[in-house]
Every structure is written in C-alpha cells, then in structure tokens.
C-alpha cells in the first residue's frame, strides 16, 4: 500500500527514501500479482470482463436489432435465432446481449456514486470523531435501517421509473456500507505512526485524509465495491421485474424474466436465458469480491 509522498522535496533525494520507494513499488507489484493469481478473482473477474466486452460490442455482435419485431413470436432456438424469439417476435439472443448494457451501466454508475458519497463521509467520521462522527454514523444508520429494495421501490415508485433516478437511488442507498467500511478502517489507521508522522510535519487535514489515510483503507473499499456491484445488478433486475425499473422496449434481464412468466407453459426457455445471464453476472461480482477479500483483507475472511 502506498505511503505519503514526501512533503519536503529534499527528502526525495536521500538514498534511504529512494530505497523505501523501490520497496514500496515492489510490495505493490507483489500484492497485485497475488490478486491476479487468486482463483476466485480469475473466475469472477473473467466473467465480468466478458460481460463488459459483450455489452460494449453489443451492437456489433447482436445478429438483430433487439427491438425489431421479426414476425414469429415464441420460436424455439434455431440457427436463425440462437435462443429463439420472445413474445413480440424479437430475437432473444440480441435482447440478452443488450440487456448486459443496462445491468452494467446501472450497477457501475450507482456504485461509483455510492463510493463518491460514502468514502469521504467515512473518512471524516473516522478521523474527526466527536459530533461529526455522531451525525454521519447516525444518518447512515437511518438509511441502513431500511431494506434497500423497499426504499428503492418507494422512491422510484413515486418519482416514476427513469434511468437517472434508479442510479441515484441505488447510489444513495448503498453509500452507508461504504461509510461503515471506511469509517472502521479509518478509526484503526489514524492511530498508526505514519498518520501521526504526517500530522507532525504539519500536513493539512485534507492531505492527511485523502493522500495518507485513504490509500490505506482502499482494500476493504474494493471488496465492498465488488459485492455492491452484484447487489446493484440484483436491485436493477428486481425493480425491472416488478415493472419499476428499466421500461420497455429497452431490453433488461429482470423485465425479460417478468415477461416470461406469462409463457411458462408455452416457452419456458424464455425464463431460462435471462435468469442464467443475471445470475451469472451477480455470481461473478460476488466471487470477485470474495477473492479480493481473501487476498487484500484477511481479517474479514469468511
């Protein structure tokens, strides 16, 4: 993990410092290699990577326009339609590919938002303690005392479904876990000598918080982020399943599962494809998170 860069430029020239810097870079590289060698990281990260590529290239890979009505509804899989057609006669395979876009966009944006809200608040609460700590942590408790999806439903249900609101809601609701994780680690790290050293040489608070403490609390944040991405995929799919998320005709895995319920007896495969897609992506994020935790954060190992 990185240590603060020197505040006084002369230090950088000293041989001791140069050696320390080299050691640090080596340590980081070793850690990075250990992450990449982890089986779970390879498996989970691999699936995520493939999904990202598929989502980015959807318009090139997909054999048909996902929203185009091609005639025959509920066709079984065939060479012309790899996974058959849906109830409107649209190509199921193409819709599945485009569905990856929705899942990934919602989850990535909302978790990024959650991190942007949660990390600074967690740092502030853990570093300053006192009233700041009380206010931030109690506010986090209030949000946490709510089942995520219920809050999301309440907000989206009232605002009306839209992509922006969906991202906003998931982002805000998922900020408290980030606050908690960063807060806990900050409480521990602020007692460490390197933080006191930074304070002693007169570094500004913002510098200490974001350049000294933050890099050392990033490991649990990464783990939390990966698990959060899985949860965000679940929430988006769940809301779309209820008709409160992504709106037709845009292809979304959750909505595709919901539609398939009307045709369970006639074409059960329509249930299977989107189910596999959404489960696999969530599984990948969770496996990635577990793997990252094994390597980066042995204290939390489950």
């Amino acid at each position: 993990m990185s240590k603060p860069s020197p505040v006084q430029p002369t230090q950088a020239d000293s041989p001791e410092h140069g050696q320390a810097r080299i050691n640090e870079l080596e340590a980081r590289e070793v850690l990075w290699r250990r992450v990449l060698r982890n089986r779970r990281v390879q498996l989970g990260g691999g699936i995520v990577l493939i999904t990202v590529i598929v989502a980015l290239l959807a318009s090139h890979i997909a054999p048909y326009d996902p929203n185009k009505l091609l005639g025959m509804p509920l066709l079984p899989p065939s060479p012309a339609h790899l996974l058959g057609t849906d109830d409107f006669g649209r190509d199921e395979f193409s819709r599945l590919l485009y569905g990856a876009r929705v899942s990934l966009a919602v989850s990535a944006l909302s978790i990024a938002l959650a991190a942007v809200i949660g990390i600074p608040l967690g740092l502030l609460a853990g570093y300053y303690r006192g009233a700041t700590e009380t206010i931030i942590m109690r506010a986090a408790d209030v949000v946490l005392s709510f089942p995520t999806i219920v809050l999301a439903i309440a907000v989206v249900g009232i605002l009306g479904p839209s992509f922006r609101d969906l991202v906003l809601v998931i982002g805000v609701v998922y900020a408290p876990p980030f606050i908690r994780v960063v807060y806990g680690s900050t409480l521990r790290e602020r007692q460490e000598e390197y933080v006191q050293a930074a304070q002693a040489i007169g570094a500004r608070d913002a510098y200490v918080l974001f350049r000294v403490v933050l890099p050392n609390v990033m490991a649990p944040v990464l783990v939390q982020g990966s698990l959060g991405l899985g949860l965000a995929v679940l929430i988006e799919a769940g809301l779309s399943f209820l008709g409160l998320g992504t709106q037709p005709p845009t292809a979304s895995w959750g909505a595709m599962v919901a539609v398939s319920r009307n045709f369970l007896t006639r074409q059960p495969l329509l249930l299977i494809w989107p189910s596999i897609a959404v489960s696999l992506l969530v599984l990948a994020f969770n496996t990635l998170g577990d793997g990252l935790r094994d390597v980066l954060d042995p204290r939390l190992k489950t």
Partner: protein
Amino acid sequence: MARYVLRRLVYLIVQVFWVATVAFVLIHLVPGNPVRAMLGQDAPAAQVAQVEHVLGLDRPILVQYVSWLGHVARGNFGQSELGGWQVLPEVMSRLGNTLELIVGAIILSILIGIPLGAAAARRPNTWTDMILGWVAMAGISLPNFVIGTVLLLLFAVQWHVLPHLEFVAWTKNPLQHLELLVLPCVTLAAASGAVVMRMTRSSLLEVTRADFMRTARAKGLSEAAAVRRHALKNAMNPVVSILGLQVGALLGGTVIVETIYGWPGLSTLLLDAISNRDYPVIQGIVLAIAFLTVVVNLGVDLVYAYLDPRIRYV
C-alpha cells in the same frame, strides 16, 4: 443491563422518529399530485382544490408534518386516501402475513444453514467444503425472482404438486395455508440460508482453534461431541448477528416473493399504494417497516449480549 436496555429503547424511538421524518419529507417533496392521481388528470381545478382542502393537503408542509406526527404518536395512521379504510389495522394485518414469510424463512435458513455450515467446517478445504461453498455462493447470487419463478414453473406448472395462487387464510384452512407458505419461504431462505451457512462455517473454523477446544479434545471427547457441546454455542454469536441483518434483506425479498406468489402481505400493499400515490398508506408501511427493522436490531443485540456475557453494556 436494565440501563442498557433503557438507553437502547430511547435510541430506538429517536431512530424511528428520524426514519418517519425522512419518509415524510421524501414523499412530500416528490413531484406528482395525489389528488390528481385520485380524480384523474383532467379533473377541474376547483374540484382538486376542494378535495385537497378536505384532506388538509393545502396546508403548509410543516403544519402537515406536525399534525401527522401528532396523530402517529397517538397511534392514528390516518385513512387510505383512495379506499377510506383505516391504515393502521390494514397495515397490521398485512404485516402479520409478511412476518409469517420472514419467520418461516429464518427457521428454514437455520435448519439448512447451520448443519451445512458445520459439515463444511469439519472438513475444510476438501471437496465437500468446496461444493458446499459453491452451493452457498449460488444461494447468495441467484436473484429471488429467478428462484421463485423457476420453483413456480417446476412445482405448480410442471408437476402440479402444490396448490396454485389462491390465498387461503390461516383461520379458514390451516393445512392449505401451510402448503401455500412452503414455496415463498423456500425462495426467501435460499439467500439467507446461504449467508447463515457461510457464517457458521467461518465462525466454527475460528472456534475450533480455540484453547478450550484443545482442552475438550484432550480430556477425551470425540471431535463430534466437542463441536456439539463446546464449539457450536461459542460460534453462534456472529451467526445470530448476521441473522438479524438478514431480517432486513428478507423484508426486501418479500416485495418480489409476495408479488410472484400472490401473497397478500405488506409489500404488495406498498406496491398498490405507490401506484395509487396513497400517501397515508405509504407512510404507514414505511413506518411499520422501519419500526420492525429497528426492533429486530435491538433484539439481536440483546440476544448477542445474552450469548456472550463478555460483552459490556456501554
């Protein structure tokens, strides 16, 4: 201990108050007029204004808030703006149905999660452990709407084993009611059972390395007896606390499970109320859910303190 409980109770009230406030603000700051939703978009403005006046919606928001808070404190949650029925009794009866699902799911997760977790912990890093680990991973990752729909497809449509979507009250036919309860509970328990299993495994692994376990083995207890008599109780603390956290997740899960199986619980009521913009009902449900979660958290902390006397009440 008494002081600790008292402090927690005060804290509980404060927390519910804040959640209630947030819920109120959230619902009222949001665009969309409930009276318009009620009367239709092209209702004459005079009529809208009149209904708003009758319902008190034309008062300043702060006045509405204080009056609402006063009513809630006296147990009056108001009436449905659409149906005219009292919110509190309806919410309570729906809450009962939802709690049935949650309790059933918790019992199932304990019955499945703890033995499987213990089995995995007995042979760590073997094939058994690995397979169970993937089972747990699947339980956590499979969305409940997928599990629910697949179960429905298999049991109700394909095999005709379980009765279809026709709710039967407990009082009418207890046996049929129980039958209806099976699939929703199993659906809900998949994720929480997996979480319990993972926590049981890691917690047991930690405990089996403890000194008192070496003593137990040294005095000649078999491994199974040592685990049963000494390790399990000591390993249960984290499991209890994670079960408490699961209640919130389960409550969230009921939204989808109730929809799939047509279960008349709190969540289906919430969805209805939201599509009708029935503010008093939404507020009542939000409060009920918040209250439930906070009470559960308190309960978990108390059980936790009971299981581990080393915890100080600070």
